[in-house]
C-alpha cells in the first residue's frame, strides 16, 4: 500500500484505465449476445452481486448456508412493499435490502454464538425456518406458490428517452449500474480498516480480540452488510422475473453460490466473480449448446470435483499465471508491482 507518490499515481491511472476498458466491454457485451443470452447476462449480473456479498461475509471466516434465503428476504420484502403498499420499486428495492440486513442483525444473536461448522449448519437451520414461514403463511407470502405479478421497474418515458425495463438489454444496464455501485461499496469496505479487521478476525480471532476488536460486533457487521447487498440482489431478481417462491431460495440454490465462490476462489475480490461468470457460461451456454441436458448435473459435478482437486485456490489463482504469460509474450518492460487485485 505505501509506495513512492509517482509510482502510486502511475498504478492508479493504469488501474483506472483498466476499469474504463472493463466498463466499455460490459457496455458493448449485450449487443454481441442473442436475446436469450442477454437474459442470462441479466441474471449473471445479479448473481455477481449475490456471490460478492457472500464473499464479504466469508472474510470473517464464517461460511453461511443461509445467504440465498437472505436474498429471498430482500426479494419478498421488496415485492410485497411494491405490490401491497404501492411503494415505488426503486425505493422498495432499497428497503428490501434494509429488511434483509435487519433480519441478519436479529439472526446474528443466536448464530454468532457458533463458529465454523456449527455456524454453517445454524445458518442453514435459520434459513430453513424462514423458508417454511413463507410456505406456511399464505398471507402475505403466497404460500408454496409464492408471489406473482410483482411490479416491474417503472418504465422511463421522458419524451426523447423511453426505456422499457422488460427488455433484457435495458434491465442489464440497470442491474449493471446498481451492481457496480454495490461492488464499489463492497470493495471500499474491504480496502478500508473494516476489511483489515474482518481479515484479522478470520485468521486469528483471539489475537484480534486481545487488541480490542469486538469480534461479535464485526462478524455481525459483515453479516449485516453482506445481507443488505444480498437483499438488493433479491430485489433486482424479483422485479425482473416478476415471481418469487420458497423453492427458488432453497438449499440447492445456496449450493450454487457456495460453488461459485469456491471454484472462483475467495482470496481475492474478483475470485467469486470469476467463478460465477465461468460456471454460468459453462452451465447455461456451453452445456446447453452441446445438447447435454440430462447429463448436465453430472458434468457440472465433475467440474466441481476437478476444480477443487486441481485448482484448490480457485480460478483466481490462474489469473497471475495468465498475466505472467501475457507479460512474457509481450516481452516488453511491463509495469512492475502488480497489486493483488
Amino acid at each position: 500500500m505505501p509506495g513512492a507518490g509517482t509510482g502510486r499515481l502511475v498504478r492508479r491511472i493504469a488501474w483506472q484505465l483498466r476499469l474504463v476498458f472493463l466498463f466499455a466491454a460490459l457496455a458493448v457485451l449485450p449487443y454481441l449476445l442473442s436475446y436469450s443470452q442477454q437474459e442470462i447476462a441479466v441474471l449473471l449480473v445479479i448473481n455477481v452481486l449475490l456471490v460478492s456479498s457472500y464473499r464479504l461475509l466469508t472474510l470473517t471466516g464464517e461460511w453461511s448456508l443461509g445467504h440465498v434465503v437472505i436474498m429471498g428476504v430482500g426479494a419478498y420484502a421488496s415485492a410485497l412493499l411494491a405490490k401491497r403498499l404501492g411503494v415505488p420499486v426503486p425505493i422498495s428495492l432499497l428497503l428490501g435490502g434494509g429488511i434483509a440486513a435487519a433480519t441478519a442483525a436479529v439472526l446474528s444473536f443466536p448464530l454468532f454464538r457458533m463458529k465454523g461448522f456449527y455456524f454453517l449448519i445454524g445458518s442453514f437451520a435459520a434459513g430453513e425456518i424462514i423458508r417454511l414461514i413463507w410456505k406456511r403463511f399464505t398471507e402475505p407470502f403466497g404460500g408454496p406458490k409464492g408471489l406473482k405479478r410483482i411490479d416491474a421497474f417503472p418504465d422511463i418515458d421522458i419524451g426523447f428517452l423511453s426505456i422499457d425495463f422488460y427488455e433484457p438489454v435495458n434491465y442489464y444496464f440497470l442491474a449493471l449500474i446498481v451492481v457496480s455501485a454495490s461492488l464499489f461499496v463492497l470493495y471500499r469496505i474491504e480496502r478500508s480498516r473494516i476489511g483489515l479487521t474482518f481479515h484479522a478476525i478470520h485468521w486469528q480471532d483471539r489475537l484480534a480480540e486481545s487488541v480490542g476488536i469486538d469480534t461479535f460486533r464485526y462478524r455481525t457487521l459483515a453479516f449485516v452488510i453482506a445481507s443488505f447487498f444480498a437483499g438488493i440482489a433479491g430485489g433486482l431478481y424479483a422485479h425482473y422475473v416478476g415471481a418469487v417462491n420458497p423453492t427458488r431460495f432453497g438449499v440447492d440454490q445456496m449450493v450454487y453460490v457456495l460453488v461459485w465462490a469456491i471454484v472462483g476462489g475467495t482470496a481475492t475480490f474478483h475470485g467469486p466473480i470469476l467463478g460465477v461468470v465461468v460456471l454460468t457460461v459453462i452451465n447455461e451456454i456451453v452445456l446447453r449448446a452441446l445438447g447435454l441436458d440430462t447429463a448436465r448435473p453430472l458434468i457440472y459435478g465433475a467440474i466441481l470435483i476437478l476444480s477443487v482437486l486441481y485448482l484448490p485456490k480457485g480460478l483466481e489463482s490462474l489469473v497471475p499465471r495468465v498475466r505472467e504469460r501475457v507479460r512474457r509474450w509481450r516481452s516488453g518492460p511491463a509495469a512492475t508491482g502488480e497489486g493483488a487485485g
Partner: protein
Amino acid sequence: MNAEGERPILEARGLTRRFGGLVAVDNFSFSVREGAIHGLIGPNGAGKTTTFNVISGFYAPTAGQVFFRGLDISGRKTSTLAAMGLVRTFQGSTLFQEFSVLDNVRVGRHLGARARFLSRLLGTDRSSEREADAKALATLAFFGLEDLADEPVSNLPHGHQRMLGMAVALAAEPRVMLLDEPFTGMNPEETRRMMALVRRIRDRGVTVMLVEHDMQAVMNLCDVITVMNFGALLVEGIPEVVRNDPAVIEAYLGSAAANGVNDAA
C-alpha cells in the same frame, strides 16, 4: 512510576476455573504492582496458561474475581479488557501470518483509529488512518522492525515474529501487558535482547506480567514472582526468596518425575 505502589493494578482473588471434573485453577490469588515486571511460574500443568486465559477474558472464572485498576473485570470480554488497557500476547508466533508486518501492527492500532462507518466508506477516515499508520510505524521502530514493514510475516525469522507479537500488543497502548512465554525457544542472545525489550516496555509505563519456563530469564528480569502448583498459589516473592524456597524446588523436581498432566491447553 512506582508511586502508586500501594494499590495493585491487577489482582486475582480466590480465582477458580474448572473444566468438567478437572480443576485447572484452584482458589488462586495474586496481585501485581503497577510498574512491575511480574513473573508467573510453575511446573507443567500448574494452571498458568488457564490463569492467563481467565485474566484476559477467554474464559470466565468458575469462582473468584479479577480486579484491574480496582474494577472487578471477571468474565468480561477480551476486547473490552483490551479497551480498558489489559492486553495479552500469545505463545509462539501467533500473528496474522497472511498480513504484512505493518498490517499486523495496524490491526493492533484498532482501538486508536476510530472512525465512522461512512467515513471509512468515503475514505474520509484518511487523517485518522494516517495517524494510526504513523503510530504503527513508530511502534515498529521501537522494536527495530521498521525496515521490514512491508514484508509478509511468513518471511520473518522466528525471533522477529516474537517481537512483532509484542509490537502488536504494544500498539494497542496497554496499561498492563500479559506476555505468554516470551522467551520459549529462543537462544541466549535472543533472550537477552528480548529481556531488554521487556524492560524498555516497562520503562514506557506499562506493567508487565509474564508466564515463562526459562528460570534464568525470569529470575533476572522479574521484580516479583508468583509460583503456582496444581492450580493454587505456592509462593510469592522477590526472585531471591523464590529461588531458595524448598517448596518450589520440591514442586519442580516432583514434576520432572511425574510428567503426566498437560496444561489445560
